[in-house]
């Protein structure tokens, strides 16, 4: 149980070996989808491509057509539930999930039994790296529903051998009471809900930093890796080490957290990734920001090749933790669809969120509102001051001014900052909706219209 890695053999595999393995697996995957997925057979035929044409990683990146979620949804809507995207007989599908629908219509996601095993495994690398062991007990603070993200955490808990304690449909106070009574050691939740629970516990007179929780582990929205200020808040509130994983429901929990805390590592046993300049389709170099393009080896029921995540990432090929798996520094830096360009300056969601998180008089409830003004994108930060300032309206405007200046100094762009009364913005148990896109439809990605 003292091993530093879940699987040192592959987590520290030299890059040349990893790349050779990727090529071999991608070639097999191309044959697999050509024989079994009517959707991909059609796509490859349309591109004039046969599986045997893929001889190098460059061939794969640049010859295999990109896939976008909207294509899958169109196919599924025309022929529900899965349409021609399904690559196995339907009786092999043992679990049905759906994407959260954050960016539009939910996507139906089928998994075979083996897919669920491999998907769950992705979580374990990060949990192990953080220090979570089979003797730990995981408290799941959410209703299960169809949301793939936390079902896969359950698959991970079974793999690791931890005790599972389900909070099911309890409300926030119910979760806190259950934690105090059952004494789990790991909290599994979205990061904002972890903070919400701590705040409600304080109102109940309970200090959760003194509870049994030793670790918190998160997914579903930018968390402690992307937002250092949020890490500080969660770790302080819960008296625990906070970890995070980057996943995409239809792909995998593909990037477990790095124990150094400043990024996530792509699980290169499960997926192959590269970064693309969304404007021209070219690959971007290490250290530059580009869209993460993902191919999964482990979704045999509904394979995904060169899938556009629309997540903007910065990749590094080495890390102090010793893993050779590609590191995504700061996890997701923004979205291609939610990135706004104000007078020539790209504004990334997480960059703004990090600055807001550094302001002690601002609560964790805020929204970033996208609009169009004078043929330009514009972003307004609508925020709540902390509850202690509920009666100090004079102070709210001063905080808004400080926030605007702070953002301008760091990002060289002036955003409008608008205070609203404490406890008036919506609270979420699952994904917190930070972005409110009020731009006309023609300025949004097709899927979001």
């Amino acid at each position: 149980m003292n091993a530093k890695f879940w699987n040192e053999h592959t987590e520290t595999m030299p890059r040349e070996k990893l790349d050779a393995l990727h090529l071999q697996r991608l070639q097999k995957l191309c044959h697999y989808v050509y024989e079994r997925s009517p959707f991909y057979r059609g796509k490859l035929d349309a591109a004039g491509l046969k599986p045997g044409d893929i001889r190098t990683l460059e061939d794969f990146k640049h010859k295999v057509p990109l896939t976008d979620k909207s294509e899958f949804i169109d196919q599924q809507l025309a022929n529900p539930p899965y349409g021609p995207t399904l690559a196995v007989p339907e009786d092999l599908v043992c679990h049905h999930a759906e994407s959260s629908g954050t960016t539009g219509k939910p996507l139906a996601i089928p998994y075979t039994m083996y897919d669920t095993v491999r998907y769950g495994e992705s979580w374990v690398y990060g949990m192990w790296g953080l220090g979570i062991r089979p003797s730990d007990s995981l408290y799941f603070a959410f209703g299960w529903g169809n949301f793939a993200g936390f079902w896969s955490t359950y698959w991970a808990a079974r793999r690791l051998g931890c005790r599972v304690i389900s909070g099911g449909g309890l409300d926030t106070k119910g979760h806190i009471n259950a934690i105090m009574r059952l004494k789990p050691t790991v909290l599994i939740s979205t990061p904002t809900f972890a903070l919400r629970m701590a705040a409600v516990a304080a109102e109940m007179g309970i200090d959760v930093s003194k509870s049994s929780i030793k670790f918190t582990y998160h997914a579903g929205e930018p968390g402690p890796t992307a937002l250092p200020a949020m890490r500080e808040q969660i770790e302080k509130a819960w008296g625990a080490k906070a970890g995070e994983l980057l996943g995409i429901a239809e792909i995998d929990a593909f990037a477990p957290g790095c124990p150094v805390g400043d990024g996530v590592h792509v699980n290169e046993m499960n997926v192959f990734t590269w970064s693309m300049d969304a404007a021209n389709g070219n690959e971007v170099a290490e250290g530059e920001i580009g869209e993460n393009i993902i191919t999964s080896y482990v979704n045999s029921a509904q394979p995904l090749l060169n899938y556009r995540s629309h997540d903007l990432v910065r990749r590094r090929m080495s890390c102090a933790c010793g893993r050779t798996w590609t590191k995504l520094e700061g996890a997701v830096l923004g979205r291609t669809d939610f990135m706004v360009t104000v007078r020539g300056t790209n504004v990334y969601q997480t960059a703004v969120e990090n600055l807001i998180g550094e302001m002690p008089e601002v609560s964790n409830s805020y929204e970033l509102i996208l609009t169009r003004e004078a043929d330009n994108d514009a972003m307004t930060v609508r925020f709540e001051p902390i509850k202690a300032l509920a009666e100090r309206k004079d102070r709210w405007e001063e905080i808004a001014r400080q926030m605007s200046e702070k953002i301008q100094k760091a990002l060289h762009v002036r955003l409008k900052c608008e205070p609203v009364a404490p406890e008036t913005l919506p609270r979420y148990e699952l994904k917190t909706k930070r972005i409110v896109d009020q731009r006309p439809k023609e300025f949004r990605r097709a899927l979001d219209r």
Partner: protein
Amino acid sequence: MEERIRSIRQARALLAAAMQGCELPQIEAMLRNADMELHWALWNLGEPVPLRPELG
């Protein structure tokens, strides 16, 4: 590591023999799950195996 990989491959061969003609659905399911885990072990040791265990 080579020795471990060889042992896992041998175990898969034994499982394949045990699965052949198995008429008990319960036991067949157990053997199939065991083979899936061994396939996954080889995959995670970087061994060249097919994408799914039943493919070879």
